[in-house]
């Protein structure tokens, strides 16, 4: 399946290129890129034991636009160094996205490898398909779905999105999400058929009540729509000093999560195993070129936490440096414990966009 996706991707990029060449200036191909180096140093719970990983990412973005369509492709080459190379090999090529979007009087059609985004973006979004969390890089990119998506707008700020995708040859994945804007609120309903006996249905909102508010609620059910468990979020945000200091708090409820540490089925790859979580985030802009952030994920069952201070320095147009450290506070059987994830993870990112 993965190979098919890559072949599709390469064919798509080729098609994009050749089509654009023949269409001339209107619809001409534009290529932008990103070069990013992430160096990770992990201090494990063993004394004097350090691990080093290095990921060099070369990203190429292909885009061609005309009045009635656009091509878009996001192709990446990863070069691995340090201990991560033992896991993933020396390199990897990925087509994260590659699609054609056609605009018609009956809506916009997207065909190809694309993101299907429902709900409020973020780590705890109940409607996110990929539930994995990387505390060393919270914003890590996900692969798109091979899908046909349709968006129809019935008002300036309201519309309905539907999609079908084939995750396995036997099963079609599909979903629908109407969204409306009322007053100061964006409101949405979602129904996703993710796989056999795996449906996610619910609602979400984001708006203003003096402070910014957001929330979501989703029920997981089988194909007879018998509820299995539910997830929910509620969050607040507010800014001070004319937006230079942003404070946000988010609570996450997962009915399927464990209610005591003894019930965790923990691995180093999976997180968010408990029923209740909190996320506190403070973002400060020191000036136009320097920002700092502090995020704290707290497991509200065992009160362990991962605390992530970070800073971004913009050196010049398109060139930036990021330093991020992830501290795990507990040292026993708690979820965010040093025995599971190490004492701390330091990431130094150098990034250039062109």
């Amino acid at each position, binding site marked *: 399946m993965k190979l098919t996706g890559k072949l599709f991707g390469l064919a798509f990029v080729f098609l994009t290129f050749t089509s654009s060449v023949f269409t001339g200036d209107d619809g001409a191909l534009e290529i*932008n890129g990103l070069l990013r180096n992430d160096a990770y140093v992990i201090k494990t719970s063993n004394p004097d034991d350090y691990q080093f990983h290095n990921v060099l990412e070369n990203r190429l973005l292909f*885009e061609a*636009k005309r009045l009635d369509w*656009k091509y878009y492709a996001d192709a990446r080459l990863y070069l691995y160094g340090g201990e991560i190379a033992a896991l993933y090999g020396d390199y990897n090529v990925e087509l994260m*996205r590659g699609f054609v*979007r056609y*605009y018609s009087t009956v809506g*916009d059609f997207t065909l190809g490898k*694309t*993101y299907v*985004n429902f709900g409020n*973006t973020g780590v705890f979004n109940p409607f996110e398909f990929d539930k994995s969390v990387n505390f060393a890089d919270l914003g890590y*990119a996900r692969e798109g779905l091979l899908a046909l998506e349709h*968006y129809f*707008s019935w008002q*300036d*700020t*309201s*519309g309905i999105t539907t999609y079908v995708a084939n995750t396995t040859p036997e099963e079609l994945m599909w979903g629908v999400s109407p969204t409306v*804007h009322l007053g*100061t609120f*964006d409101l949405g309903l979602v129904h996703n058929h993710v796989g056999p006996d795996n449906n996610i249905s619910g609602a979400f909102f*984001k*708006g*203003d009540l003096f*402070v*910014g508010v957001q929330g979501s609620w989703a029920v997981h059910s089988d194909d007879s729509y018998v509820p299995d468990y539910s997830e929910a979020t509620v969050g607040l*945000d*507010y*800014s001070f000093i*004319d*937006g*230079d200091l*942003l404070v946000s708090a988010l609570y996450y409820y997962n009915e399927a999560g464990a209610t005591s540490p003894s019930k965790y089925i923990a691995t180093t790859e999976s997180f968010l195993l408990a029923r209740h979580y909190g996320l506190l985030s403070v973002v400060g*802009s020191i*000036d*136009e*070129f320097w920002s700092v952030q502090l995020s704290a994920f707290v497991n509200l069952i065992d009160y362990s936490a991962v605390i992530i201070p970070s800073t971004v320095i*913009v*050196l*010049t*147009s*398109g060139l930036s440096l990021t330093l991020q450290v992830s501290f795990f506070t507990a040292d026993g059987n708690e979820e965010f414990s040093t025995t599971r994830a190490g004492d701390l993870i330091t990431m130094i990112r150098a990034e250039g*966009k*062109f």
Partner: protein
Amino acid sequence: MKRWIILFLLVPAFLFAVTGLQIIRNLDQNKGYNTQKYSVKMTIQKGKRTLVKTFTGYGMERGNKSFMEFTNPEDKGVKYLKMDDQLWIYLPEADDTLKISGHMLRQGMMGSDLSYEDMMRDEELEDIYDVKLIGSEKIRGVDCYKVELIAKVRDALYAKQVVYVDKKRPVALKMDLYARGDRLIKTMEQSNVKTVQGRYVPMKIEIRDMRRKDSLTTLEFISVAFNIKIPSKVFTTGNLRR
């Protein structure tokens, strides 16, 4: 007789004296448009460091509807849609549209000294401020009226503005922008005034945020056009993904 001569000399002065309100009305009239399309180069400076960004934008209903798209390589495809006081941002990396909380509208746009509200709001000053002509002053050698604007509505962008308007053309060459407590927070200087479709347009705007040391944001209009036909679908959240 002497009294009559003085009176005679004063009459024309009364007949032709301008008021602050007239100056601001002329300013509003000159800025008024049904639709607007522009292309801008934005330079953000902090000491010796510089960032350059470019964007194109459309406006309708004096900024009540506004659409902007960044075109420089680092931010290419980032788009904003403003409808009344609601703002959405489209991030091409996530192919996703996010609603920005209302309290964030005063944040500097893309790290600049220009807030989202500064860029996108363009109401008639007369509707928002009480106006008083407080004198004359030369700005870069040009004789200007000095007009004080005091906010009369709660959601005014600034509690007070002091605007220096060219005496020969209805263009503000400088604006001092104050928060509550008479605290000067920003200055805007407008220059390179050109005539575009019969109205005076400052093609260069320099903004200094007084709370940030050595900070300067410069907007240079590469092109600007007024009252052109803009399809209504431009101002839709669906258009952000296109």
